[in-house]
């Protein structure tokens, strides 16, 4: 078996890469080890509404709810509100992530990519140092498939990167370790996303509440792994629900998931015959842990660059570096800025967080984004947030909207 491109992992990043490469005429194989795309869901299911503008999805079946805005609570309960009225009506969706992932894989198939389930990649095929394809385990059978380009879209675990010699090991201070419940039958009338901060509530992370509509909610926690102890994330979430979210205690638990999000600096993303996309490339936002938008944006760029490479029959690092150049233009600066903000925020104690929240509790934000929050903070606290200032300036030129 031989393909131009093998994409490993049919999450959003892999499916979008496969689709845009196939659209440009490449012969693409998309390999997924799961038996059903999108299942199990490992996601909070919140995404910025600006993905509407990208025309990557065709249906609306994946939309569960539209947010009215976000409420951020400091440790003492002081509330900062970003509402849709202030933000020009553009906020975020809560999605059915399994439906979302299936639609993206469907569209990859429609563009001409071949999709294979229950096919786990267990190694790279190499000739000397040169990557020639992948080793696959499929229903107890092991075999090799050759390709000119291998794409690692294998998520936070990313073995593909490691096998290709890229150090993708995530440091504990760069990983959010998470658990999330989905509850139904909850009497908690809000269409705002809620975020709870505090060293005791969620060290190095936050607790979120996302309304899916009709009394269904995702309630989850992410904490930095360097503050984690065995099972701590689950214990903290249970304790918080018990104490602060009594309405959810009466809800019916439909789902419990564990998850991990890299909140790291991006790694090297191209080698000869190889690219990394999505979480495998560490493209999730270091502040929010959101990685859907960058998976779509980065996946499209990767697919287009691969399409060109196949046309020109050039698979060397120099040719593929176009991908790295373009994703850096699209969102590289934002990732770097938010990584630095994450590091600065870690130094704030609960008292400082309360003080910052208090100063923003009546603030009118210009848009629904972390950037507009950061700008407001710098405006109000120029000395405390001195280190943030140049970072905000950098990104002024290119305003990016993001939950």
């Amino acid at each position, binding site marked *: 078996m031989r393909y131009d491109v093998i994409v490993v992992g049919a999450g959003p990043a892999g499916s979008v890469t496969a689709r845009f490469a196939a659209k440009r005429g490449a012969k693409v194989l998309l390999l997924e*080890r*799961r038996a059903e795309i999108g299942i*199990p869901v*490992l996601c909070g299911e919140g995404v910025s509404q600006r993905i509407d503008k990208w025309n990557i999805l065709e249906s609306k079946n994946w939309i569960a709810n539209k947010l009215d805005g976000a409420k951020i609570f400091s440790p003492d309960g002081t509330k900062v509100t970003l509402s849709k009225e202030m933000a020009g009506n553009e906020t975020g969706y809560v999605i059915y992530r399994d439906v979302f992932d299936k639609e993206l894989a469907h569209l990859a198939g429609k563009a001409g990519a071949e999709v294979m389930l229950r096919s*786990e990649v267990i190694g790279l095929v190499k000739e000397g140092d040169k990557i020639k394809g992948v080793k696959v385990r499929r229903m107890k059978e092991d075999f090799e498939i050759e390709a000119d380009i291998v794409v690692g879209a294998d*998520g*936070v*675990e*990313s*073995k593909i990167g*490691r096998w290709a010699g890229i150090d*993708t*090991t*995530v*440091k*504990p201070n760069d*990983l959010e*370790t*998470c*658990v999330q419940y989905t509850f139904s039958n909850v009497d908690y009338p809000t269409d705002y996303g809620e975020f709870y901060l505090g060293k005791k509530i969620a060290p190095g992370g936050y607790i979120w509440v996302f309304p899916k509509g009709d009394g269904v909610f995702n309630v989850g926690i992410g*904490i930095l*792994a360097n503050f*984690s*102890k*065995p*099972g*701590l*994330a*689950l214990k903290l979430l249970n304790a918080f629900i018990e104490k602060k979210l009594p309405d959810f205690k009466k809800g019916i638990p439909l789902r*419990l*998931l*564990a*998850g*991990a999000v*890299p909140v790291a600096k991006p790694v090297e993303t191209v080698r000869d015959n190889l690219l990394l996309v999505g979480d495998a490339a560490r493209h999730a936002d270091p502040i929010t842990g959101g990685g859907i938008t960058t998976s779509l944006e980065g996946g499209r760029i990767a697919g287009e660059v691969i399409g060109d490479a196949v046309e020109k029959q050039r698979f060397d690092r120099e040719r593929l570096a176009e991908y790295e150049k373009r994703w850096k233009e699209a969102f590289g600066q934002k990732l770097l800025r938010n990584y630095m903000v994450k590091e600065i925020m870690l130094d704030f104690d609960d008292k400082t967080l309360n003080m910052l929240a208090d100063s923003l509790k009546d603030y009118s934000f210009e848009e629904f984004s972390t950037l507009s929050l950061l700008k407001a903070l710098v405006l109000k606290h120029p000395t405390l947030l001195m280190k943030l200032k140049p970072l905000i300036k950098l990104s002024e030129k290119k305003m990016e909207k993001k939950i």
Partner: protein
Amino acid sequence: MVKHKAKVDERECLSCGGCISVCPVDAVFMKNLRAFVDQSLCIGCSICVNTCPIGAISLEE
């Protein structure tokens, strides 16, 4: 000195992949969609043990 090795309780594991991404010596794999430690590679650093959000990994002798 007794050497400790990590072990995943596969009945507990919810396959989030966190332990795999943080292991400094690449000793953790997905096997039948559950995390699995290759104890011949494990150096007993306990990073994965602390990372697991539901406490499904422990160190054993």
